């Protein structure tokens, strides 16, 4: 059994393995005709997956968003963008591997991209700090935002981070100030900003590259104010044991956020999640980017700034009433 499998995936993967064995068996025995039986079994496997995924809890989705095999930004960059040139400098003091960016083409349109990444093996994960963004990353992002603005190129951001890093150095290098500067920078940009949350959208670390004209989110991605474990620690005063309850409580999944206007579109994932069929996931993301970019490119600079401002100005649910005010 593969240690990266989630508990609810195991019966599905088990069944799939049997199907593959059966397939091999029929190939070895052409005299036996098992086609009908096999087709029925495959259909059963699909409907079992469908049933399982319809019943996923919000916490299950957090675990899918963090799945070690989940497609990461480099796959989307390689598959969707042409001739990307990475620009690594923040022009201050370092290169954050957790947040990368550069120039590229999307569908014959020159763009600037920003992307967060966690790494796919231990060496990469250490190099990328498991996706926890550093102040250098935010400042590199700001430099690239300014470049996009200068050359009038749309900005496409792939968000995937558990959150801002929480070590001594990130604090002393002023990550709060760096994040705040990025929010202000994005608000003023006169080019389209398209944000796609592909895995974890963790707190200020995610928001620092996620103020967009449109914010899209993969079906099993999450976007939250703080990681569930941190929320558990703050609200339940524990070491993260209430993370599943915290997740149910603050509702960070794509359908939840679509309902309250925090995201504009949920991008469907292939059956079983993006990691079960990365190519299909890439196709769906491409279609969504194309659609929204086409709409945004027709807007004037003023319209883009105004629409982005109003998008965020109107987010927040509160009571306003003289009579009911406590």
């Amino acid at each position, binding site marked *: 059994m593969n240690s990266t499998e989630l508990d609810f995936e195991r019966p599905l993967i088990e069944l799939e393995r049997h199907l593959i064995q059966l397939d091999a068996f029929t190939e070895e025995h052409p005299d036996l005709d098992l086609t009908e039986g096999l087709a029925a079994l495959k259909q059963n496997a699909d409907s079992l997956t469908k049933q399982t995924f319809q019943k996923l809890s919000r916490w299950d989705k957090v675990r899918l968003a963090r799945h070690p095999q989940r497609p990461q930004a480099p796959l989307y960059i390689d598959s969707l963008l042409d001739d990307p040139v990475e620009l690594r400098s923040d022009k201050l003091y370092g290169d954050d591997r957790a947040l990368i960016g550069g120039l590229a083409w999307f569908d014959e349109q020159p763009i600037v991209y920003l992307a967060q990444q966690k790494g796919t093996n231990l060496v990469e994960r250490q190099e990328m700090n498991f996706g926890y963004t550093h102040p250098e990353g935010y400042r590199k992002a700001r430099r690239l935002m300014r470049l996009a603005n200068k050359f009038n190129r749309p900005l496409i951001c792939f968000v995937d981070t558990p959150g801002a890093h929480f070590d001594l150095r990130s604090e002393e290098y002023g990550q709060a100030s760096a994040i705040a500067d990025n929010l*202000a920078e994005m608000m003023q940009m006169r080019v389209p900003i398209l944000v796609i949350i592909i895995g974890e959208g963790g707190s200020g670390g995610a928001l620092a590259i996620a103020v967009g004209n449109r914010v899209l989110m993969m079906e099993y991605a999450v976007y939250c104010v703080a990681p569930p474990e941190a929320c558990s620690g703050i609200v339940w005063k524990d070491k993260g044991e209430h993370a599943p309850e915290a997740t149910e409580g603050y509702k960070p999944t794509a359908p939840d956020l679509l309902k309250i206007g925090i995201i504009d579109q949920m991008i469907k994932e292939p059956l079983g999640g993006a990691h079960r069929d990365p190519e299909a996931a890439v196709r769906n993301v491409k279609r969504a980017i194309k659609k929204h970019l086409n709409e945004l490119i027709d807007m004037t600079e003023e319209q883009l700034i105004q629409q982005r401002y109003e998008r965020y100005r109107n987010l927040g649910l509160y009571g306003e009433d003289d009579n009911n005010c406590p």
Partner: protein
Amino acid sequence: MEKTQTTFTCRFCNADIKIEALTKNLKVCPACDAHYPMSAQERLNLLVDVDSFEEADTNLYSIDALEFPEYPDKLERDIAKTGLRSEMLTGAAKIGGYPIAIAIGDVGFIGGTCGAVIGEKVTRCIEHACETQLPLVIVSVSGGMRMQEGTLALMQMAKTAAACTEYAKNGGFYISVMTDPTFGGATASYSSLGDVIVAEPGARIGFAGPLAVASLQEELPENFQKAESLVAHGFIDHIVHRKDMRQLLTDLISYTY
């Protein structure tokens, strides 16, 4: 920290202080100058000209939009405890005779955390300053974003930053005052976007919560996440004793009025 009803032991210098003496000294320890927390109302009295404050947006209140466990109970408890209707004081006032727009946080309400109400009140306060071309003073105190309001709380960072940007574009002058503690989303949005940023001595200021930082078990310098360290690292302009804050604000405002 209280010993009896009339004295208490300072948790910084262990001196036994009469509560009356502490109150008279603006809640600053007379022995060691440690700055103790103040409520929004106390701070307002300290900073603005007598009878000059006109409160705005008093009818906003937090709701449990996401049905987060126990949130309504906590809201009710803190409304009773602080007597605050809407978590933060905002409005128009005068400092040293100069009309200004002002917002003052209060740490007593769900740990001073920032949710949709604070986001909206800060935003409206900035918009008011923008429309009336008044200088803006925001006194921050925050325990980070409010978990019970989830991603909506996170969005308040973008919303308040947007208002700051508009205000700056219109030539507004914004003084951010950071007090103990200022953490999380507040620090990473409106609190850090001031034209001038000042803080009280010893104020704990940061993005990551101290518990999260401690979990990495790094050796931390004495002043870590203190106002003094932020000055040394280039993120704050000035550390000002509470008794001098009003004069400094007056001086600063006078340069742009």
